């Protein structure tokens, strides 16, 4: 659900130490950060290493490993999180096919679902 609404259009930008875009949790509620098992990012089909991904909400930034034991913060319903990719110099201006996926540990589900969205995002000069 909400698959095609995960990536926020027009949100790609260069930031200190890399680039970032905004993403939402594909779910009808929010989730405690410890239950976000993985966040995938790809650029033009090339996967980004898990270690290079940072997740940021309301001014707090976490590595994906850190998130696994964060019990006092959440990714709220519909909340736009900033997904940061560490990359020297960021991205050159142009258009990129950004892939974004989440793997969530949902208590009541008998599986651990992964949901993905892909959008063409432009980075202005």
């Amino acid at each position, binding site marked *: 659900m909400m698959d095609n609404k995960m990536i926020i259009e027009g949100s790609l930008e260069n930031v200190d130490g890399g680039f970032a875009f905004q993403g939402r949790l594909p779910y009808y509620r929010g989730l405690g950060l410890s*239950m976000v098992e993985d966040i995938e990012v790809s650029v033009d089909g090339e996967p980004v290493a898990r270690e290079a991904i940072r997740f940021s909400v309301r001014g707090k930034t976490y590595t994906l490993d850190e998130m696994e034991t964060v019990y006092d913060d959440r990714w709220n319903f519909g*909340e736009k999180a900033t997904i940061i990719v560490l990359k020297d110099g960021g991205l050159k201006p142009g258009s990129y096919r950004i892939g974004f996926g989440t793997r969530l540990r949902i208590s009541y589900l008998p599986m651990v679902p992964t949901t993905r969205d892909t959008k063409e995002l432009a980075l202005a000069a």
Partner: protein
Amino acid sequence: MARIACSAGRLSSRFNPCNPYVERTIVSHQIKRGVSLYSFQNETFQGKMNLEDCIRTCAQFGARGIEVIGEQSFWGWPEVGANQADIDHWHALIKKYDCTPVSHDYMLDYKRYKGRPMPFEEQVASVRRDIDFGAALGVPFLRSLVSIAPEVLVAAAPYAEEKGIKLLTEVHAPLHFDHPWIIRMAEMFQKSGSPALGFLPDMGMFLKHYPRVWSAKFRRMGVPDRIADYIEKAYEDRVLSEYVILEVQQMGGTGPAIGMAEVIRHNSAFEPKRMLDYMGMIHNIHGKFYEMTEDYVEPSIPYDEIIAVLQKGGYNGHICSEYEGNRWIEDAEEPDSVEQVRRQQVMLARLLGEPEAPALKVAA
């Protein structure tokens, strides 16, 4: 007085001392309409509707019972906590639009810790916190997911009683009232003697026909018509899901074709009358629906039969609309949750014999 006399009769589905005409007349007016704000998730997720838009819309439809998933409608709950200002805002809106809080649907994330389940006592404490939150919202009911262990609910029940709240386990497909998990749960609830434990059936378990919006989505995903047609026919014929899956494999079906058959594992046409044995424990209803047509029909769920059963059983709580067609159509079109809920509310009002309110005739 007739109402009081009949309430005793309602406890038993087999014997009713009241005049059947009187009971039908009185009881049919006691079922109340409500909406779970889950229904508007497509709009609230995108910030197109806020809490006030949702509650105002429900009130316009004459659906005055409001059900929320706490952590959908209140950012921060449960890990961070909800803001008192948000709770105050909720009460102001409920008052402004003359609505009634019905239920807080909590989740209990017992898989919060990677690789280990949440300890029993911590689960009970977590439910107690949700009871406090429900009390702060002024709801009489909390919805418990069906996977939550009955032992946890029994342990939390005395605290719920103290707060005047009932914990209602959502009986939801693939589970149903004849499933051993539900039967065990009912036995434990009854043995506990606590009036704070009961059920909230989701009408999706009475899936009479394969939903058109499901079929259409699987066809968009590439399921060939001959296979999709077969699956819909097999569902009508009530063929065992495992046979249908095997047949689809033998027809050459892969990927989404298998998926289209596999959903039959999790959805069945159970009979609405199975609720009758449990009426005394049923205090809220999820009016699940996948699609409402322009002429106010849910093509897959038999609401005429359902309402008749609920009236026969003397049900006097809310039926809360729960629109779940959104996820089946969003790849092809933007869901219009408000119009879908409006249509279901028209259907419910008609089935309940209400004089149709003018507001129901126009979209909000």
